[in-house]
């Protein structure tokens, strides 16, 4: 059969190019039938096959002494000691959330939770990284997404403990919704979704299968345009209650050794979960009978069943003969389960409908057959430059501080995270509101810190440096709690990579990530790529490589928080400041510009500062610590005051030195922290700083209810609170 003979519209419907179609025919030595074409279409979509990014992703470092599972499974896993593994992954749900904010975000959360469950782990925390266009126009998206994340996470009873939310013009048509889940499992019970054992049964459990989300993965792999709403697959509606039952039942599976593997059903539904599960075992195949799949609707064809993206389903590989034992566990939770097929050794995914064979494809063709796309990257025209000498001088730092605190990108996030249950589980020992969140691990003294970070404005101005800065900032947020950064998951949100500038951004970003993670010794153990975040004729998003990071505290009793704690403590700036106003929030808010180079980053210095911080925290010298990033020193200092309810009195900032006054207050030099230290610990702190060759500057003394820089300005906590808390609600 010639390619020309296939209806072009049909090819577009399954999102395959004529070349890809030829490749299929070549390898199969025949034309695929309708069902096969649909299955190949979804698995070869960008979303499932990573055909545009796979080659680049190999450059990321993914090994390390603590890594138990790197990329390639449903989630990554690291050993955190005391017999525990932390399992975690981040994932995007951008396209669905743009169409239906509530359900898009909710099902994004549901999906990432299932990835963690598939590793045998109990999910203990959720994080959400969000980007929207400016308020008030984006109100509908913000409210829907936040309600959707809360709606799912609150109902299922997993605390949402951290995240980020930023507003920038470039996200107006393409909001970003990335969700991360962290779970725990005893190391010896860590599972892998491998279809081992010819003859073992495939058990489908959870929700009945409906026609929702057919072609969802393909849909997520193209730009949104005016016709998106017509092409849109039936939107998936999440059922967190069902997933809660599924979660508990899967945890109960630990009581039996009859389970070989668990795999969630996500994008591309049964097709991808069966193919992936088999694809991880050399020579393995699977045979499934779609007539055995429990359905929600009448009149569904094998095509529908294989491609449905109905939520809240899992595939369980069960030892042959022990199906009843496993099914009874699901029954106890009133969950439907059905044996729908078995593991084979012919390397093929065979689909039958009762007695009739409807598809047979080599597993390898499905999972690894998509021809990689060789794209070219071309550096774009220079980003707007910044000449500091042209900037009007800073006249009133106090007034500027109030405006910055009220900026939607810097203001308090309480209005968001109070809509999330961040306490359920009785483990959140550092709640949202500061830097990273920390959860204690019950039965041990361990504390697990977690954060997501990315300043996409930096990435826009310099994707390589921006990516490094994102890793450094995430690590800093972990360190600010007293925890040692451990490992990374990343979500690469980009525009259309077919455009050379965008592909260049992706290349540069990955180079930056790889470098930062190498120097900071942070393996990337899982991640996700979301491309085509751009609307035809509209602006494309900034490169947005969201970094999810976890870190470890040996003793959570030594955790630190951002707020000042005692009057009379010394307030110090750890790390060096430079004239880093490029890409800063100050430049945007006070001068209306997004320009310049992002702050320079010396990764070795960054490391040294972390070492000092962890030594000081471990030695009990610090009473509080806060990372200094967006908004610079003064905004960070204001946050320390607001979170602690204590002011600070400081001598004036010198204007004659090499650092300009505006940069001293609002510059965003990385590798800095604000800490408070009781006076008796000052000598030791200074010795430690010298030993680590890190500059430490005395800012002032904690106390009172104002921030004052003598002779320069004075602002009360009440004024600041009003500015800070009135914006994002």
């Amino acid at each position, binding site marked *: 059969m010639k390619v020309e003979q296939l209806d072009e519209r049909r090819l577009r419907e399954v999102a395959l190019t004529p070349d890809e179609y030829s490749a299929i025919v070549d390898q199969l030595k025949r034309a695929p039938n309708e069902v096969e074409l649909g299955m190949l279409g979804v698995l070869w979509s960008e979303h499932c096959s990573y055909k545009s990014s796979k080659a680049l992703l190999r450059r990321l470092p993914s090994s390390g002494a603590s890594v138990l599972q790197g990329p390639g499974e449903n989630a990554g896993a690291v050993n955190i000691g005391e017999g525990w593994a932390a399992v975690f992954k981040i994932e995007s749900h951008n396209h669905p959330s743009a169409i239906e904010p509530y359900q898009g975000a909710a099902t994004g959360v549901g999906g990432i939770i299932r990835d963690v469950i598939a590793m045998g782990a109990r999910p203990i925390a959720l994080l959400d990284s969000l980007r929207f266009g400016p308020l008030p126009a984006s109100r509908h998206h913000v409210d829907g997404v936040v309600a959707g994340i809360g709606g799912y996470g609150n109902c299922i009873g997993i605390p949402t403990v951290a995240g980020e939310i930023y507003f920038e013009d470039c996200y107006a048509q393409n909001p970003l919704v990335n969700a991360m889940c962290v779970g725990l499992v005893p190391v010896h019970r860590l599972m892998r979704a491998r279809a081992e054992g010819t003859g073992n049964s495939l058990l489908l459990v959870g929700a009945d299968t409906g026609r929702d989300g057919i072609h969802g993965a393909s849909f997520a792999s193209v730009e949104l345009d005016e016709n998106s709403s017509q092409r849109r697959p039936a939107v998936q509606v999440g059922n967190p*209650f069902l997933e809660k039952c599924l979660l508990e039942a899967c945890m109960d599976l630990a009581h039996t050794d009859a389970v070989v593997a668990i795999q969630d059903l996500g994008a591309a539904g049964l097709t991808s979960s069966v193919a992936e599960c088999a694809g991880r075992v050399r020579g393995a195949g699977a045979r499934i009978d779609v007539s055995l799949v429990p359905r929600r609707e009448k009149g569904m064809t094998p095509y529908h069943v294989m491609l449905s993206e109905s939520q809240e389903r899992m595939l369980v590989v069960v030892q042959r003969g022990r199906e009843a034992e496993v099914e009874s566990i699901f029954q106890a939770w009133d969950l439907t389960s059905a044996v729908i097929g078995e593991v084979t050794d012919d390397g093929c995914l065979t689909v039958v409908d009762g007695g009739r064979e409807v598809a047979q494809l080599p597993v390898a063709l499905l999972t690894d057959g998509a021809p990689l796309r060789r794209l070219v990257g071309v550096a774009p025209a220079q980003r707007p430059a910044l000449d500091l000498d042209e900037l009007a001088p800073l006249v009133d730092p106090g007034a500027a501080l109030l405006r910055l605190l009220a900026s939607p990108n810097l203001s308090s996030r309480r209005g968001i995270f109070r809509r999330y249950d961040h306490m*359920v589980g*009785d483990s959140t020992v550092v709640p949202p509101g500061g830097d990273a969140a920390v959860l204690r691990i*019950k039965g041990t003294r361990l504390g697990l810190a977690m954060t997501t970070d990315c300043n996409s404005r930096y990435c826009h101005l310099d994707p390589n440096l921006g990516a490094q800065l994102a890793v450094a900032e995430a690590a800093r947020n972990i360190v600010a709690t007293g925890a040692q950064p451990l490992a990374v998951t990343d979500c690469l949100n980009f525009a259309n990579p077919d455009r050379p500038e965008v592909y260049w951004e992706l290349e540069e970003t990955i180079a930056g990530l790889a470098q930062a993670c190498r120097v900071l010794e942070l393996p990337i153990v899982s991640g996700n790529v979301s491309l085509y975040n751009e609307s035809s004729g509209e602006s494309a998003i900034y490169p947005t490589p969201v970094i999810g990071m976890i870190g470890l505290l040996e003793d*959570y009793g030594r955790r630190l928080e951002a707020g000042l704690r005692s009057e009379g403590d010394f307030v110090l700036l750890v790390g060096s400041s430079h004239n880093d106003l490029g890409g800063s929030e100050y430049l945007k808010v006070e001068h209306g510009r997004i320009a310049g180079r992002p702050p320079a980053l010396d990764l070795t210095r960054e490391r040294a500062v972390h070492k000092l911080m962890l030594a000081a925290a471990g030695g009990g010298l610090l009473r509080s610590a806060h990372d200094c990033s967006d908004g610079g020193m003064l905004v960070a200092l204001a946050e320390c005051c607001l979170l602690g309810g204590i002011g600070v009195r400081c001598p004036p900032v010198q204007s004659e030195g090499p650092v300009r006054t505006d940069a001293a207050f609002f510059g965003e030099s990385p590798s800095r922290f604000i800490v408070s230290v009781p006076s008796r610990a000052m000598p030791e702190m200074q010795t430690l700083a010298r030993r680590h060759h890190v500059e430490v500057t005395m800012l002032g003394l904690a106390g009172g209810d104002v921030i004052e820089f003598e002779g320069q300005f004075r602002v009360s906590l009440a004024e600041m609170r009003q500015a800070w808390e009135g914006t994002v609600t």
Partner: protein
Amino acid sequence: MKFGVLVFPGTWSDRDCGWVVDQVLGEQLTYLWHKDADLKGCDCVILPGGFAYGDYLRTGAIARFAPVMEKVGEFADRGGLVWGICNGFQILCEAGLLPGALIRNASLEFRCQWTNLMVDRNDLPYTSQCAEREVIRVPISHGEGSYFADPATLSRLEQNGQVVFRYCDADGRVTPGANPNGSLHNIAGIVNKRGNVLGMMPHPERCSEPELGGTDGLKLFRSVVESATRALVS
């Protein structure tokens, strides 16, 4: 003494309550399953927080029909201690073991935050360790915690002194500003007339250890233990 923590499909504070009973208090703990036909000799049954049956239709509406609820009703009638927290409170109202209902927060938003509670009564098995009119700090976490009862019921509650906790500010003033959800009379928790069935929206199990930000919740658990011990002695 022996606490029973009731688990419905969709319950999620079960393990948190269990943790406090077992690890913090060191008391006996058993989990009760919604399909159970007896209460396994528990001295106090806790209906914990969560979204039983997804809270679909109405909070607590489907859960109240779980087989175990009949036993809970009988236990309550005999004077047994039945303690509904958050979703548990909602279920007790639906089951008619407590008057009134919990409706959508006035803000229409879920709220997870610390609140201050005025302890209106400290002569109950649940509050004996609190001082008279003590202000305690306990977090809430709910989308439908606005207490409603018709005017007659409400005045009966007040006359009988059945209001146990009211949302207040840090100084104990019961003000509209301190009310996080629009509850009538700032009601955060009530008891039945006999005083053995308590329903409250705030989560004492979330503030029973210092690392979680406070220990006021432990006073309530301790009160229950103390009253049970006292009952045993007398």
